[in-house]
């Protein structure tokens, strides 16, 4: 088990030292938050809270999603291509630990990304929340990043090292736009509102919006996210098995 700890630490350090990765994961949500904060009046009321708070939640969940998708997708695809995944298979690490460690490393990185966006809201957006609410918000957004961590790893398994990056980018923007992270879902046409209700990105942010509005988080949102996490986890496990048996045949 000490081996697993060393491997996780290695993965997290490698991610956090990658300037481009950190730039994208932290830069995108922070820049978008400061850019679009004044699209509406920051104090305008929306869904039981203010726009500055609502949009901070949107961007924090966007950041966690970007960090998770990029952590898995692009890097895993290139490690499969380079043969590093095969080399790890001939160490004492159990086969399942590669995927679980990738997902865990994504989650470890997602937490500070959420915190940085919250800090931006606090310092530059004028967001004011009670300590308990800050903590609840952080916890909820962090846990609900899990399906995206699994999705990132899945992309890394199905895509090649050339197709992974465009695929991750497309997923990132489709999920965030249609999930209502840039335009509030209430402002979207009815058809798109319907689309949003199927997307994990919408349910992820929804949990956060509920927390800042003082509502109890919806069981429906949590259920959808859990369903996505389980489904993606199963597909990843299956892909990993297929890949493992094929790589050495």
């Amino acid at each position, binding site marked *: 088990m000490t081996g697993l700890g*060393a491997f996780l630490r290695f993965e997290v350090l490698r991610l956090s030292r990658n300037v481009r990765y950190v730039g994208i994961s932290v830069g995108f949500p922070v820049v978008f938050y400061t850019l679009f904060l004044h699209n509406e009046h920051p104090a305008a009321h929306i869904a039981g809270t203010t726009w500055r708070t609502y949009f901070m939640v949107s961007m924090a969940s966007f950041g966690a999603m970007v960090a998770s998708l990029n952590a898995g997708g692009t890097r895993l695809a290139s490690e499969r291509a380079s*043969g590093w995944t095969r080399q790890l298979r001939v160490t*004492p690490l159990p086969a399942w630990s590669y995927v679980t460690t990738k997902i865990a490393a994504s989650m470890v990185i997602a937490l500070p990304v959420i915190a940085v966006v919250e800090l931006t809201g606090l310092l530059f957006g004028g967001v004011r929340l009670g300590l308990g609410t800050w903590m609840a918000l952080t916890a909820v957004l962090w846990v609900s990043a899990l399906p995206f961590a699994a999705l990132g790893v899945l992309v890394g398994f199905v895509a090649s090292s050339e197709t992974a990056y465009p695929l991750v980018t497309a997923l990132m923007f489709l999920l965030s736009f249609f999930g209502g992270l840039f335009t509030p879902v209430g402002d979207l046409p009815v058809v798109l509102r319907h689309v949003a209700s199927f997307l994990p990105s919408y349910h992820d942010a929804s949990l956060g919006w509920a927390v800042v509005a003082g509502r109890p988080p919806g069981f429906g949102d949590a259920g959808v996210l859990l369903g996505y996490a389980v489904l993606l986890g199963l597909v990843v496990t299956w892909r990993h098995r297929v890949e*493992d*048996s094929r790589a050495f045949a």
Partner: protein
Amino acid sequence: MSLRRGSTCPGSDGGGPALQFSGVVHRYRSLVALDHLDLEVARGETLALLGPNGAGKSTAISILLGLQRPQEGHVSVLGTDPRSAMASGKVGAMLQVGGGSGLPHGVKIGDLLTMTSRLYRNPSPVERTLERAGLTDLVDRPTQRLSGGQAQRVRFALAIVGDPELVFLDEPTIAMDVEGRRNFWAMMRCFSEEGRTVVFATHHLDEVDAVADRIVVMRRGSVVANGAACTIKAAVPTRRVRFASPGADPVRLRELDGVNAACVRGSEVVLDSLDADATVRSLVASGVAFSDIEVTGADLEQAFVALTGDLADAHTVDDAVASRRPSVQTGSAA
């Protein structure tokens, strides 16, 4: 061979063989990759696995590493099953990586080896591994800034950082130049002389001759020859008859008794013969003028070709090898 067990050498658990295949069969759909393979490697031995592409070498290695399960038969590695042996950290491997470097991006070599060493129960100190693989000067170099040969050395370091008792190397020098290959095997030699078992597959026959204690030649999923290099060479009936004969007629030479192939270059004649005695007798009887006659045994390259039927007259050589096969089996060298 000398078994100099140094202080860094992992303790041996029992005197059984390092690895053993008995009656192993493995098929990919209709293709038989391993056909009742029997093979035993003693502890401390350096064994070369030879064979043309498709002979079953890679399948055998992936079964030994626990990456595939044999469909029939029994395999044991260090007295246990392959997966347990791998999990115990007493086995290291350097696999073929195709086009890639086999290494993750964005990490210093020292950090990569430190992390990998922590996956093992009783690893070697990282400094020692760096030294063994000739990487001490590259400890702070990121993995994406390595030459092909350097990446190869890092992969060798990854295979030995856990201080394994048993190391598998699948075509370890495939992309190296002559100099790089020589250095690599010098490194390997030092490592194996500490009493470790090394099994490697290669296409470079000169390496085999210099490095291996024993050679196993595989063909179509089973062992066709097994012994020291000299035994393998002796087992091949081909002899080379060389002499000078200005204006010799190759067609006529090919008709001499026992001759397989005849080659005439200027006044120099080279005959490959399955019965050198008969060839020389019929050469004398034929009245062809000759001088400076010399008869030599097969070199390893010829032996390999003869045994695996890669080129030449596979059918004839096959029959000859089949009739000799019992005498080729010398069993374990240790």
